[in-house]
């Protein structure tokens, strides 16, 4: 076959992870923003904006894992064992968050606040773990003979803790702008205020990461500042600043869907920055996606399904969003 299978699979997995970051990003963000709203009915509205779609959003994470196992089994085995603690904690967080969707409606009144807290803590834990995992991937792992050879706590570093914080801010901003789009009245007003603070926090975070990353990782610095990459890169800071400005402006001027769309663009910029930083490695600093590629028969077989089925998935997922479009009113969901 003339198809560059490992490359195509990198694109598919990259796309799947981006879908996950965006879609479960706002779900998790809502969990983190829940403590800002005290009133139970308002909290229900916030949760109800994603109740019909969160499961589909989370499925992109399963696709990321399964796709990685199918196409790059070596990378899957190195990354998942290297990230043992953060991933287990992420799963625990996602369990608490996931069951809280149902449990917080079903518990008796005395226990409802408990499941609200589980929803929030689960979201925090899952997001922080993902951010830490991200940072430690940028840091890289000790690998010998394509097997993880480092220690159980190698993932823990000031840099990875900081990327954990960055992801908290990013998901919270996604959640806040999602809620601006899907609610009105008091909740929307609160989220507009929260989102403006979060934009500033995210800008600071992006600035620090942009300085810290090349300083701590000479390899990434070379990749960033060599020609022609630098030419592609140079507009990115300007785009980030411009998008943030437009975002704040829209938040102040009664923008409904626009803040969310701009946040998506902002995250997309950050995501591409990350990809460029580690490309072509799949397990930095030494294992490239070609080293980790699985059998061509495995990649080819799965590719047929992925290309045929993903368009259908996108179609019916979009339909589900369409069915539940519009603002979630206070009356909605109550009888």
């Amino acid at each position: 076959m003339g198809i560059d299978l490992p490359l195509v699979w990198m694109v598919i997995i990259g796309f799947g992870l981006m879908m996950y970051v965006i879609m479960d990003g706002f779900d998790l963000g809502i969990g983190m923003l829940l403590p800002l709203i005290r009133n139970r009915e308002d909290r229900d509205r916030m949760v109800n904006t994603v109740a019909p779609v969160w499961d589909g959003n989370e499925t992109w994470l399963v696709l990321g894992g399964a796709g990685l196992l199918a196409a790059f089994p070596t990378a899957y085995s190195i990354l998942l064992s290297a990230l043992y603690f953060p991933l287990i904690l992420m799963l625990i967080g996602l369990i608490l968050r996931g069951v809280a969707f149902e449990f917080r409606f079903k518990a008796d009144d005395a226990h409802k606040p408990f499941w609200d807290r589980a929803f929030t803590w689960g979201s925090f834990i899952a997001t922080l773990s993902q951010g830490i995992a991200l940072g430690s991937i940028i840091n890289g792992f000790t690998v010998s003979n394509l097997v993880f050879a480092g220690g159980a706590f190698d993932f823990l570093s000031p840099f990875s803790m900081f990327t954990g914080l960055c992801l908290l801010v990013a998901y919270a901003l996604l959640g806040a702008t999602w809620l601006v789009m899907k609610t009105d009245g008091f909740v929307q007003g609160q989220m507009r205020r929260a989102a403006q603070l979060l934009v500033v926090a995210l800008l600071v975070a992006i600035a620090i990461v942009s300085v810290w990353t090349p300083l701590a990782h000479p390899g990434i610095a070379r990749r960033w500042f060599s020609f022609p990459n630098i030419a592609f890169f140079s507009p990115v800071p300007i785009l980030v600043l411009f998008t943030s400005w437009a975002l704040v402006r829209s938040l102040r001027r009664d923008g409904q869907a626009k803040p969310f769309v701009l946040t998506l663009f902002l995250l997309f910029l950050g995501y591409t920055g990350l990809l460029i930083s580690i490309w072509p490695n799949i397990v930095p600093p030494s294992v490239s996606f070609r080293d980790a590629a699985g059998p061509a028969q495995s990649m080819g077989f799965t590719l047929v399904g992925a290309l045929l089925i993903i368009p259908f998935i996108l179609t019916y997922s979009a339909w589900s969003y369409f069915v539940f479009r519009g603002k979630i009113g206070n009356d909605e969901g109550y009888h």
Partner: protein
Amino acid sequence: MFGLSSLELSRMQFAFTVSVHIIFPAITIGLASFLAVLEALWLWKKQRVYYDLYQFWMHVFAVNFGMGVVSGLVMAYEFGTNWSQFSSVAGGITGPLLAYEVLTAFFLEAGFLGVMLFGRDKVGPGLHFFATVMVAVGTLISTTWILASNSWMQTPQGFSIVNGRAIPVNWLEVIFNPSFPFRLAHMTVAAYLSTALFVGASGAWHLLKGHSTDAVRTMLSMAMWMIVIVAPIQIFLGDAHGLNTLKYQPAKIAAIEGHWENKGDSSPLVLVGFPDMEAEVTRAAVEVPRLGSILLTHSLHGQIPPLKSFPKSDRPNSSIVFWTFRLMAGLGFLMALLGLWAAVLRARKRLYTSRLFLRFATLMGPSGLVALLAGWMTTEIGRQPWVVYGLLRTENAVSNHSAAAVSATLAIFVAVYVFVFGTGVSYMLKLVAKGPYGVRGADMSEPGQARRPARPLSATPDNIDPAITK
């Protein structure tokens, strides 16, 4: 932790997380199909009872489904976190099967679940029914892929080994490996049977409490029809699966039977006993002459390879699988008995009134899940010491973690699972106890007419507790 190695702890962690997980998809598979049938009956016959039952079981389904999703997510990652050598060696085969499961099943279920649970007043009845059917189909597709993967690990074929890794050569052979059709049929029917027993027990419990409504009687009746038809089929499928296992994994069958050596011209069936792996005997054995030959070879003089014909290092733990198998098979026959009894009572028009029968049906509620877990343990412990049969030993599949690290995560999993899923199951049982009568706020005698007033976007009614304190 307690002097256990990282390997043993990883096995415990996987066994614990998968055993808790498997309960939820089993009920999801059964309830999704049940709901599709109920909605079809409602659209067709326009009888209120089917709508009430749909709404009632949908609430239980929603809680159960959520727990299945989050506990299943763990499984997709544990292959790598704890079994990285397995992923590295066999990922080229199990990975694509898992990826197909995600693409064809998980997204389908998730994509239509929202409309199924919350979309009743947003889409028409036809489209809502379509969503229910898609969710049900998704659960069955999911079953198919995951059992193809599991079966390949039990009876691998269609691959070659290159540089120590399994490379797929023929995907049809990989998927349709020798044990796949048997395992798929046995497991799918087990899910249906477990759900029918659960639904039937719910109906029987309500009848015992004196709640003899149309909906309660209908759900008992539907469950008992399912059991009387399916329980005998399951016994037949189990027998066929056993013979298939004998052909491809004879050590597993020898361990199940506590059969150490061949003597005379036929094998007895050990009814009960205590297989001793060290002494290589089955202690306190109660045997029926010739029955082993008859059951396992369907002939008077056939014999099976005994445990002693396998090297000690290749023998699965007979002390465990001997009993897990008997637990499963014994419950299976009790299920068939329950179905038969129901049929007799139905003919005599006493199905809803015989208290003895209703008590038995209530007691049998969890039996499907217990049997399913026991059967699962039999087949999984019975394929040890291999993780991919004859190809990769479990001890060579594990990640390189310290025992302390795995102890920590195992402790976290046990604490969180017991608390979270224990709570969830108690919520499910409370919902069941609430009963399918008088679904609040629903006033809909015909499909499409008078759309329901908006419900909470939780698929489950708020605050179920007061109903329990009656």
